């Protein structure tokens, strides 16, 4: 008796894996092929991983007494995955093998909760996934089926079925699958379109448009001379970053602020490391364009944003869209744009009276009404005032201290200088997030960078320690990892103690 063709399907809840199996079973039946499917469907909720397993006899006739209900390592002929990590999971579990398995998978990623909840970039290395896919399967049919579904107006499972049909690994002709889709009776046209797309793609008849991910660049308005100045003196490797920095800061504040950026960078350039220049160029631009209410108002009322929101929420050209913004400024946000003297007094009072971090104004502003939009435009128009604001003064001082430590670190060890520059990544966000990030940043500077600069810690060790501490700071919002890491660094005894006398 011939051996069955074995098919393993890895899907996410809600991907329609069950319907996919129904289609395959129906199509096999219609061809007179013995077939059996089973599933581990997970729970009723639309998340979590689900698996399906099918066996299809290659020729018509009676099937053996027992078809298997469980996949076996090294014995899967076709592995289907609706998402790249799920393909990786089948490979990880040994079900995909280079001598036997044809892997048909979508290349798009749906990040798992652990990847999404990370405080920085927590996504699994796609390079590793793709390498495993290429090395550990016999043949591959890979494309972004999520996008294909969107382009064809179909659903992902239909595209995957099409790709399976196009692979030619089952003795079932395309029309039999189409008949199964019709028989299913749900969203027939959309599913047939998805099927045709997937099948065409698997046979190499269709190319998919590469989905472009564009980085948005700030507009250049009258800063060509500054850009020219950078081009004259800086190495090419840093220019994309520096030019963007110039444009960004001119739009954020004004020309002279962008010029200040270049002045600051000149001092770093003078140290002679192109890599360091690029790192600092990137972080300095972000730090100088710190998020205050003026910047938020600028971003929320830009012309480009109005268009972007409509596209993002998929409004048709004839459909009006009402936008409501969620704001909740507190005492600190308000003080940020007051003169420093006034702001300090208010903050001190707020701290004494326990109102700091407790008092907020919850505002839902409708920016699609004329008055709502105008309110934000007024705030955005405060740009001219920003250099006189408390936050501006504080930020500039903090930036100068940061640049000074980078400059001081460079002669000791270039890695320490770069790691100190990279620490700026911790400072981001608003409210508590900002405070937490800034706190972590200061802690690391005080406990690792400063001792290195004063000669109490070897610069080479400190460079590693700063990197470890940075990663730890991004590991959990409660700061437990950072505390542990800093404790380990000081306990490791590498701090060279000063003589007791």
């Amino acid at each position, binding site marked *: 008796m011939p051996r069955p063709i074995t098919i393993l399907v890895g899907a996410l809840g809600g991907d329609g894996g069950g319907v996919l199996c129904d289609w395959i079973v129906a199509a096999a039946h219609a061809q007179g092929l013995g077939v059996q499917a089973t599933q581990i469907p997970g729970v009723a909720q639309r998340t979590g991983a689900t698996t399906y397993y099918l066996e299809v006899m290659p020729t018509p006739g009676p099937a053996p007494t027992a078809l298997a209900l469980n996949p076996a390592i090294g014995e899967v002929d076709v592995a289907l995955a609706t998402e790249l990590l799920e393909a990786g999971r089948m490979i990880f579990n040994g079900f995909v093998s280079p001598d036997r398995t044809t892997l048909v998978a979508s290349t798009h990623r749906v990040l798992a*909760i652990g990847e999404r909840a990370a405080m920085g970039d927590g996504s699994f290395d796609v390079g590793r996934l793709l390498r495993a896919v290429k090395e550990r399967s016999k043949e591959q049919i890979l494309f972004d089926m999520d996008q294909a579904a969107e382009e064809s107006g179909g659903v992902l499972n239909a595209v995957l079925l099409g790709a399976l049909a196009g692979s030619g690994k089952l003795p079932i002709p395309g029309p039999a699958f189409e008949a199964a889709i019709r028989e299913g009776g749900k969203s027939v046209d959309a599913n047939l379109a998805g099927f045709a797309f997937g099948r065409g793609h698997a046979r190499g008849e269709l190319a998919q448009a590469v989905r472009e991910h564009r980085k948005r660049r700030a507009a250049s308005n009258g800063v060509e001379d500054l850009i020219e100045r950078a081009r004259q003196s800086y190495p090419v490797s840093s220019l994309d970053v520096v030019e963007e920095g110039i444009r960004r800061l001119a739009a954020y504040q004004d020309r002279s602020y962008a010029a200040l950026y270049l002045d600051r960078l000149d001092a770093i350039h003078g140290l002679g490391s192109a890599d360091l220049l690029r790192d600092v160029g990137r972080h300095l631009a972000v730090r100088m364009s710190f998020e205050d209410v003026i910047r938020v108002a600028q971003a929320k009322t830009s012309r480009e944003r109005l268009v972007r929101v409509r596209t993002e929420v998929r409004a048709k050209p*004839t459909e009006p869209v009402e936008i409501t913004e969620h704001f909740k400024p507190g005492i600190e946000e308000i003080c940020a744009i007051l003169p420093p003297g006034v702001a300090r007094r208010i903050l001190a009072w707020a701290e004494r009276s326990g109102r700091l971090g407790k008092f907020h104004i919850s505002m839902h502003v409708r*920016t699609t009404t004329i008055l709502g939009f105008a309110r934000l435009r007024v705030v955005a128009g405060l740009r001219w005032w920003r250099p006189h604001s408390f936050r501006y003064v504080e930020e500039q001082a903090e930036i100068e201290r940061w640049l000074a430590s980078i400059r001081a670190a460079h002669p000791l060890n270039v890695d320490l200088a770069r790691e100190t520059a990279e620490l700026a990544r911790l400072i981001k966000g608003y409210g508590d997030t900002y405070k937490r990030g800034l706190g972590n940043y200061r802690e690391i500077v005080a406990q690792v960078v400063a001792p290195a600069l004063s000669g109490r810690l070897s610069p080479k060790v400190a460079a590693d320690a700063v990197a470890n501490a940075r990663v730890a700071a991004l590991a959990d919002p409660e700061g437990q990892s950072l505390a542990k890491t800093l404790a380990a660094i000081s306990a490791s005894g590498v701090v060279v103690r000063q003589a007791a006398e």
Partner: protein
Amino acid sequence: MLDQPQVPVAQRTNPERSFREEVRALRLSDGEVFRGEGILAVTKAILQSGVAYVGGYQGAPVSHLVDVLVESQDLLDELGVHLETCTNEASAAALLGASINYPMRGCVTWKSIVGTNVAADALSNLASPGVVGGALIVVGEDYGEGASVIQERSHAYALKCSVWLMDPRPSLPTIVRCTEKAFELSEASNTPVMMELRIRACHVTGEFVARDNQPPAISRNHRLDAPAPHNYDRISHPPSTYAHEKLKVDVRLPAAQKFIVEQGLNELFPGERSDLGVIVQGGITNVLMRGLDRLEVEGKIPTLVLNVTHPLVPDQIADFCKGKRAVLIVEEGAPDYIEQAVHALLRKRDIDTKIHGKDVLPMAGEYTAEVITDGLLKFFAQSANDIDLSRPRERFEAARAGRSEAQRILGGPLPLRPPGFCVGCPERPVFSAIKLLEREVGKVHISSDIGCHSFGTLAPFNLGNSILGFGMSLAAAGAVAPVMQKRTISVMGDGGFWHNGLLSGVASSMFNRGDRVLVIMQNGYTSATGAQFIPNTSGNRRDGETTSDIATTLKAMGVKWLRTIRTYNVGTMLKTLREAMSTDQAGLKVIVADGECQLARQRRIRPQIAAQLKRGERVVRTRYGVDDDVCTGDHSCIRLSGCPSLVVKPSPDPLRSDPVAHVNNGCLGCGLCGEVADAAVLCPSFFKADIVQNPGWWDRLKWRLRSAVIGAMAGA
């Protein structure tokens, strides 16, 4: 959802879930071919067996049995079959009491092991007097990959109650035959029969030739004019119980063993190697068969398939083992009841066949293809080294080495994908609020329960200290609350409340003057099992009227501090929790967190909205978004919400490397992300967008006017 009208709990119905195809399959008659899943085949088989009543409590993987029958009311009416959607498994087991006195066949179903635990009292009291009408319990053996409960064997219950246990080979004709024979076995031995089906067996597809459904002789359509005459022997009370115990071993057991042999319920697959043999539980036969095939010895080793795993038939086992050098017992799970029994019975008969089992196979854990192959290789190496297994062993080792290589390339474990709350789930905001509460007051002891809300114990919430069973969260805090400086919070679903929580939890806590906080998630269904109706939904399939209201029930029980809160408003939920934790009022404090199950809601409203759009009516679609140039990529919002539609994407900012938050097109506009950003003071990135579909002239005029002015004001 905040701005959208909420359907009161009493009006929540779930009409879009449909089993039309399945219902049709149940009507197949003599000679027609049934195609479908295992559990549906069982459902058809009980109708073919002439059941008079069916009942059960939902739970994977057997929910469909009752679900499909709920939608087959016409068919049930024609046949006269009574259907009872029970509020828990104890109630379902007690239903079988009808077969103690009356020659009526009945079938009930639930998820095991947990359901059997709940049913245990009624089960013992049913098994003791025994039955005159066939009584079948279909249990979903929720074991191994995909299981959601503690890993224990239902087998223990069969042994201690003297209930027979079937474990049919997962092929539809076998499953159907076993189901039909189970009723006969039950009647032939006056004993209830339990039939266990594993997850894959419930969902396995296949076909069998159907027979006509049998209308029961005693039924709703053919009622009895008088009850059974009083017979004290039928009552499980002393001294009858002493007699029952003897009857079990002296009469019922031999009768069952005789029936099993006569009807050939266990299957013998012959093989040329008469010196070897395998005894396997019916339910895992397919894994074994493929394993033997993999070792190229399929069809060569005699195999005894136990479709009935309790009782064993000693003669059958002895005959099989006699004259063999070695026999392997393939028995999944711990303890190894069958292996122990076989050892004992062979010893008693002085048969010296070497028995292998848990020495070459693992004591605990699912018997997957790999585990079975590994065990078979060890068995043959010890018992039959004349069989050349070098080629299959090499293949097997190569596959394992390949997996190690793959894992090396992937470099460590892949991110897990645990189940979580759906997009727009009304329960998520409660956990967001508890997280925010903990920011204020510190960690709180959270007593969790069974249901969707148990996902609160997973990332990103990680809230929950224990789960003690369905509806048990309040009771489980009983001895924790008195030793905590802060009050404890018990979370319970409305499903759990009616299943057990009302009595085991609320009544006991009130009686003992417990000073605890209870949050009841009132979404209107038992959602984790597929949105079945419960007493506080309108949808008891009969008259569409709500049976019982939770708040009214609690008031009647004397609960003084009671708040009913719409869940989506995180701020209000937080305030209410804060009050419950800090109020001077002693006693039980209950928050009914009200919000309809979003899956059910979407099933209901999607077709309605599609129809409205088609008719050209004005429909406002709400969804949320994140301004990607305002977001700085900290993802606090994700850690406080975990919504599947709140994802991350690469930052559009060329100067930033951390990915930014993004609301994808799965968004249903529940507003939690915006609420959380507001309540936790996160960031100003979130916005709400109301898209006016089929706008009227006033919408369009207003929009044009505003767009013109706003366009002129907009910045670069």
